[in-house]
């Protein structure tokens, strides 16, 4: 019983403590670099689109707000024909970023994207693509992937042997 009264007293004293509230928008909160805000599609060091249209972000998305269609250029490089995020559904969980094998999709420290018209929250690829490598500079998926897609030839990628000579029986 006394501990209850003590609790009440201590809580009461909080009336005179400093308040933690940040009075946004007059005052802005500092955001950390890994803050999960606006979703962007980044580009690789060579300026190409990083997204290869693997659908992993879409399947990881718990609210299913990512839709895309993969397609291929004449050299076999995959890219999304369209890439759409419905931000009116997005919960900024960052699973898409976790799932992305090419560092293409990234969440950046910006959350100020409110709209009066909900339709404006549907972002297409043009709205999502940024001319930056984002948080992971220097990575180009096609340099480390095995297949040839116009970025490097077979066997010229990172950690690859030159192609096997199938006419040879030597070990």
């Amino acid at each position, binding site marked *: 019983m006394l501990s209850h009264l003590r609790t009440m007293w201590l809580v009461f004293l909080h009336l005179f403590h400093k308040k933690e509230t940040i009075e946004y928008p007059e005052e802005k909160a500092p955001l950390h670099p890994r803050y999960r805000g606006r979703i962007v599609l980044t580009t690789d060091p060579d300026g190409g689109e990083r997204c290869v249209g693997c659908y992993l972000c879409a399947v990881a*998305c718990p609210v299913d707000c*990512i*839709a895309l*269609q993969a397609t291929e250029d004449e050299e076999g490089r995959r890219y999304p024909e369209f890439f759409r995020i419905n931000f009116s*559904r997005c919960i900024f969980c960052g699973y898409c970023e976790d799932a992305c094998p090419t560092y293409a999709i990234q969440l950046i420290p910006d959350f100020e994207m409110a709209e009066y018209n909900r339709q404006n929250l*549907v972002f297409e690829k043009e709205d999502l693509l940024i001319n930056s490598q984002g948080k992971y500079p220097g990575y180009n998926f096609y340099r480390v992937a*095995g*297949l040839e897609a116009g970025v490097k030839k077979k066997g010229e990628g990172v950690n690859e042997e*030159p192609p096997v000579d*199938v006419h040879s029986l030597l070990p």
Partner: protein
Amino acid sequence: MAKSLKLVVACSLIHDSPFEVIITNDTMSTIYIDNKPFEVKAGKNLLEACLSLGIDLPYFCWHPALGSVGACRQCAVKVFKDENDTRGRLVMSCMESIKDGLHLSVSDTTAKAFRSQVIEWLMTNHPHDCPVCDEGGSCHLQDMTVMTGHDYRRYHYKKRTYTNQYLGPFIHHEMNRCIQCYRCVRYYHDYAGGKDLNVFAAHNHVYFGREQNGVLQSPFSGNLTEVCPTGVFTDKTLREHYTRKWDLTTAPSVCHHCSLGCNTIAGERYGALRCITNRFNSQVNGYFLCDRGRFGYEFVNSDNRITQPLIRNRAVEAVDETVLMDHLRTLITNNTIIGIGSPRASVESNVALMQLVGKENFYQGISDNLGFIEKRIVEVLQTGVVKTASLNDIQQSDAILVLGEDIWNTAPVMALAVRQGVMHTAAEQALQNRALPAWHDAAVRELVQEEKGFLANCTITTSPLDEISTSVVHAAPDELARIGFAITQHLNASLSPVQLGNDAMTKVAAIAAALQRAKRPVIISGTSCYNEALIRAAFDIAAALKATADEVHIAYVLPECNSMGLAMMGASSFENAVLRVSRNTNVTAILLENDIYRNMPAHIADVFFDKCQQCIVLDSLNNPTTQKADVLIPAATFAEADGTLVNNEGRAQRFYQVFIPANKNIQESWKWLLKLQALKNGTGNGQAHHPEDVLTLCEQLMPQFTGIASVAPPHDFRIHGQSLPRAPHRYSGRTAMLSNLAVSEPKPKQDGDSPFTFTMEGFSGMPPSPLIPFFWSPGWNSIQSVNKYQQEPGGALRNEHAGQLLFQYKQEAAPVYFKDMPEAFVARNEKWLLLPQYYIMGSEELSFYTSGVAELSPDVYIAISEKDAEPLGVVNGSLISIKVFEQTYELPVKIEAALQRGVALMPAGLPGIQVMPWNGYVQLVSVKL
């Protein structure tokens, strides 16, 4: 512990449903897995036993249809000497027979470590490209890697790479991904008999591919995409509009590209059909499809689709449904209406049309010739004297006679089944009195060597099946029929003898003797020769064999997917419809999904359209017939429709709508026709009917269809009150797919005609076999998950209901022989008997819309025998003119040694070429340059 066990596995989920099966197992053994006793079927290997018990054991090189070779070392388990043995030894479970009382451990730490090490080795060279690999999400290698727990590449050295090959328009090759399991070669070379895919080089750099770039020659190459456990061979047509397996809305479907009715799974995304995969059915197609069936789906997405109802000859031709219906109301009430059915439309559509126009006003949209042959087939099968052969029966048979049908081209998967029958028989013979299990693939092949089971292939010209045939006959159809009758006479001496040449007589005697020895012979014939005598001859042989064999089966190949269903309706031919419209002026015809110009010579079709007062055409694609339509109604393709097809053995099978097209004008033909029916009656709106209602009506109208209404569960079938989802639970993008149109998600589309939903919501367990929209099981994302749906690996599905057979076999029915046989074929002067040569790629109407099929289709030519070429003065490639129906074509000559004199062959069904007078005589004249 051998004992006979009879299990009645009632479908536990659905009481009082017809979907239950009885499994009879002869011998069972008890084995102890991790010290728990299990009853398993003797004669299997440990891997099969574990999988059939639901124990997850990783594997690569083993495949239920290919057997074991023990190459990949992935399925290691520990086997113990007895229950006191604690050390045990590692064995490959796919190479170890079940022994009664055997003790093994799957979860043993050494075995587990071994398995994960094997994966780790395999993964040292596997590239880092799952994100751009089409196999991802349905990859056996992914599943097995996750299953064994390997997640980090500790190997720091470089990865091996390979250059890829161009393998044709259907198969994409990415050799880097190979894990050297040899399944591709074992399937392509050993199972399907292809010669142009093999393994090259040696050691750790073996290469699976062709000797050089080029199109894979086997028409079964598409199965490589499913056989390959990883992404070396992937579907190029899917690549054009790639979608992961988890994103597809799928439904159980039935292939529409030949009469066999192989079961398929069709997948849709964003309103376009994306791919076709195999749907296992132990009685029909098993694990494999042909390339036409797998890749011939692009017509659904074609730009040539009819998208708008049209009323021709008015200012504004494109109309909406209300205007259309108003127009049709006057049309169908003021005129006599006749209906032209279609061999490629579902039973529902044909029956709806028949009901609308009346039985006497319903015509088959096929020629008199073909109609007569098909009628004969239906007649002989309805006698019930012999069983019709399912593809499984053909695989299990021990002697096969193909009489006059080029099954390689008209029913490819049947040819594959025939090959299995031949190989299986050879293996069975070789294994007699040997203690070698049949699943031991490499050893069995070693033992069999080049031995083959009995196959007699009697065709007009050469066929790829010839090389596995014991006896090959090439002759004109009449001659083949006479050979057939001669065989019957050998089997049943009471029949009058047939006069044949000495050569032929020896072959006949050999064939008859082999068939007589067989316990499960199969006789195959069909319509592609346009020769009715062949049908009778084949039946006579089968009937005569009843005396000696345990089980005789007969298979007739028909031209199209529902030819049998249409033929069973017993309507009269198109020629009679032409007569009808010629006599009566006031006739409006409704043509159902039938390009008359593909089934009838153009001049007859022209007469029909001239005489017809009004033509209402329902079809999905623009074609010469739709050009003639006064009213054109857009019909749904198989992917957008529910329906039932009757395949060549009289097996009714239901295919389900995969997606509702965004264009509301596209509706199932039977729905349109029921709406017309409602207009005509002035009652209802025609919407209240479900497929099973139409089928019930079909049973009432035509007793020969009895049973067809129970082909699949009714539209309100539910499991625990839940519908079945078409989409897997991981289906993505639901809140974004259509958000570019409107950010508020529309209500999911509703399906009133089947137990399916168009979403992932619903019952998540295993549905009854006709209702399996996709194969998936936890941890098994690839098509290999079909194991989980089977009673045992490679066996029937659990509670399998493999379609509804409409022909009842009557054990006691006494055979009545057809005695009248055709005259011997004699080459005529200046006249050649014109016969069709069908092609897997190109001869079928709908599959031609797939660019790869068009690419692989042949150019038109005319084939004659060497002996005919000389007097005509032509050589290979020189032009020859052929006069048909007052029209002259100049075509290059192809000289075929196997052809009989007086016979000319022409590719059939290619677009742009009108229908020829098949089995009629034509004049050939050499074109002098």
